[in-house]
């Protein structure tokens, strides 16, 4: 028998009992819709949770701290370049971001004509600038150039406020302050427009000529003129606090600054520069835990959003399972409905099935007809269920958070709302496949019954 004929026969018999078919389909609609909506609510919660966690830091990132006493007994581990190289080779590590801190005691930073503005405090960080964006740093102005030369420097959002004016005796410092018109007060200069001068200190003296004081160097060893290529956006840099007032240069340049400081001040048995912090980007959230374990096994103290994520995920998981279970019950009821309808229809069609057998219809084809009928009920119910879920999901997203009093969870500060219910494309496909599968599964027993009907039924005369 041609497959189109089998489908045609199935449709015909479904169509013959329109109301009954419709009611059975309705059961599947409710069941599949319940499942899709419940899962979409779970996905919405998941999404909100991830959103909040990323406010505190990237979920894919592990931070390794050097020089931390982990258990109070063993000597704290330092992050050496050797270990950085090793960590780079750990499976699932996609990128690493070491940070070499050079403090203001070693290096001075000036800006403006005649070195008018001088930095009071704060560190310079040697980093791999090409990885800044991967590790969550966002730019307010400028960007990371393709080739990052030693002359380039990147300012934190408020780094320019750390400079004081050497020409003034009073009011020579500034800080970000909201003005009457709502805008922020400007620093003394715009780093993007001024030349920045960096030099290594040579025999320091601490001078208190402003409200913070600063290190005054007797001489300038290793002087370097630099251009600011970008200013970071601290608030959106995902918990990277150095984006506020740090200065970023290339790792090579930071190494050089360190070396010249050691040389200029004739420091004996100088240790190699120490990486204060190493960030590791893991390719997938689900691999974070294993990578973190491997690094902790090396003796380092690590930190990531993983533990927070896991405990939240665990709680959400059980809530989602409960919702899904409730929904599954309604689909199960629908499945019983399909089986019931099919058995009824077989009772009615006993004679017809007998006739078909006598006329030479193959058993296989009879089974297929009934399975296709059941699958159709499931599939059509699935489609309608998914459409209905989209409507319900839309209503939830539009009115749900205030209706259910969940504003605190889904409403963001800027007035936008996170979706309460999320229906990704895969969920649509899964729902359709699942409802069809439920249809076929519940049609299995009736189909076998139909197959067993004797051809003799056709002969019986009522």
């Amino acid at each position, binding site marked *: *028998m041609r497959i189109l004929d089998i489908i045609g026969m199935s449709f*015909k018999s479904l169509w013959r009992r329109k109301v009954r078919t419709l009611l059975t389909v309705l059961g599947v609609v409710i069941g599949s819709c319940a499942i899709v909506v419940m899962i979409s609510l779970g996905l919405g919660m998941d999404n909100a949770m991830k959103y909040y966690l990323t406010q505190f830091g990237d979920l894919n990132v592990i931070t390794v701290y050097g020089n931390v006493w982990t258990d109070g007994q063993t000597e704290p581990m330092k992050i050496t370049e050797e270990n950085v190289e090793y960590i780079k080779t750990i499976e699932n590590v996609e990128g690493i971001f070491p940070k070499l801190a050079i403090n203001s005691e070693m290096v001075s930073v000036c800006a403006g004509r005649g070195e008018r503005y001088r930095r009071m405090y704060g560190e310079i960080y040697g980093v791999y600038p090409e990885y800044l964006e991967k590790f969550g740093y966002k730019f307010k102005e400028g960007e990371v150039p393709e080739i990052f030369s030693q002359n380039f420097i990147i300012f934190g959002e408020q780094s320019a406020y750390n400079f004081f004016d050497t020409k003034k005796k009073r009011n020579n410092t500034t800080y970000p302050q909201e003005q009457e018109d709502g805008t922020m007060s400007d620093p003394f200069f715009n780093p993007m427009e001024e030349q920045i001068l960096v030099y290594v200190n040579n025999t320091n003296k601490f001078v208190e000529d402003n409200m913070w004081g600063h290190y005054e160097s007797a001489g300038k060893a290793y002087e370097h003129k630099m251009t600011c290529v970008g200013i970071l956006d601290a608030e959106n840099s995902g918990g990277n606090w150095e984006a506020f007032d740090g200065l970023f240069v290339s790792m090579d340049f930071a190494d050089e600054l360190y070396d010249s400081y050691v040389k200029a001040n004739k420091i004996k048995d100088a240790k190699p520069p120490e990486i204060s912090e190493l960030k590791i980007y893991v390719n997938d959230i689900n691999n974070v835990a294993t990578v973190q374990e491997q690094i902790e096994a090396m003796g380092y103290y690590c930190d990531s959003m993983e533990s927070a994520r896991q405990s939240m995920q665990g709680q959400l998981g059980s809530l989602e399972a409960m919702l899904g279970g409730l929904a599954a019950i309604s689909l199960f009821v629908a499945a019983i409905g399909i089986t019931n309808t099919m058995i009824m229809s077989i009772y009615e069609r006993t004679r017809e099935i007998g006739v078909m057998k006598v*006329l030479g219809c193959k058993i296989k084809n009879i089974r297929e007809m009934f399975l296709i009928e059941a699958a159709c009920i499931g599939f059509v119910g699935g489609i309608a269920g998914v459409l209905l879920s989209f409507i319900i999901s839309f209503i939830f997203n539009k009115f749900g958070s205030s209706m259910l009093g969940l504003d605190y969870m889904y409403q963001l500060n800027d007035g936008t709302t996170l979706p309460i219910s999320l229906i990704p494309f895969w969920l649509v496909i899964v729902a359709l496949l699942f409802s069809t599968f439920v249809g076929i599964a519940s049609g299995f027993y009736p189909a076998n019954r139909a197959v067993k009907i004797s051809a003799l039924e056709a*002969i019986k005369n009522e």
Partner: protein
Amino acid sequence: MSFIEVDNLRKVYRIGNEKVIALDSISLNIEKGEICCILGTSGSGKSTFLNMLAGLEKATKGTVKINGREVTSMTEKELAEFRQETTGFIFQSYNLLASMNAVENVAMPLMFKGVHPLIRNNRAKKMLRAVGLEKRLYHKPTQMSGGQQQRVGIARALISKPPVVFADEPTGNLDTKTTAEVMEIVVRMCRKHNLTLILVTHDNDIAKYADRIVHIVDGKIESDYPNVSIVPPEEKKLTETERILENLNKINDTEENENENQ
């Protein structure tokens, strides 16, 4: 070797602890193209006999061979194929599918064979014309009279030109006038295509359409003789030859027709 060979066929039903012998060791040979009437009162076992010939019921003992193939030992799957290829069935209560119109009902055996809808519907229309229902092609069974429905049933049974056609009280639900019409059509068409017709009835008037009448009483063959009422023995040979000649012509005709269609 005959076309249909029934050898020592026995059927015993078990009702509680009691055994009821429905068929008691029946042996019978039927030739190709023969129109054979199985005549008997109700409860004589004639319907059981037909069911076993068509492979609808399992025999307790004995064998049925049709065209050299043993029907009694076939599996369900083999039976389905056997029915597609070899048999047609005309029911007492027509058994047309209510959801289908006449053309679709007639085309159904071809659908089970996997014939393309255009081809099978064309052939179904031709069959319906042959039984005189050209004006009822798209009527549903409920919109037709009993005689018309049975003519659709006949068209359905004969559409794939099966070598054997079984008819189980084909006129049992019809009045006398319609009975005659329907019987004429069946017999004429079977003769035209040289099909073997096994006709089960309790009605002596129907039996007169057959070449041969087998009378079954209490599960046994009581008598088995050629039907003298329509063909006198001395003339039979002549008409047989005529019939064969006529059939040859008809077969050529239909083959030509079918070639045209394809």
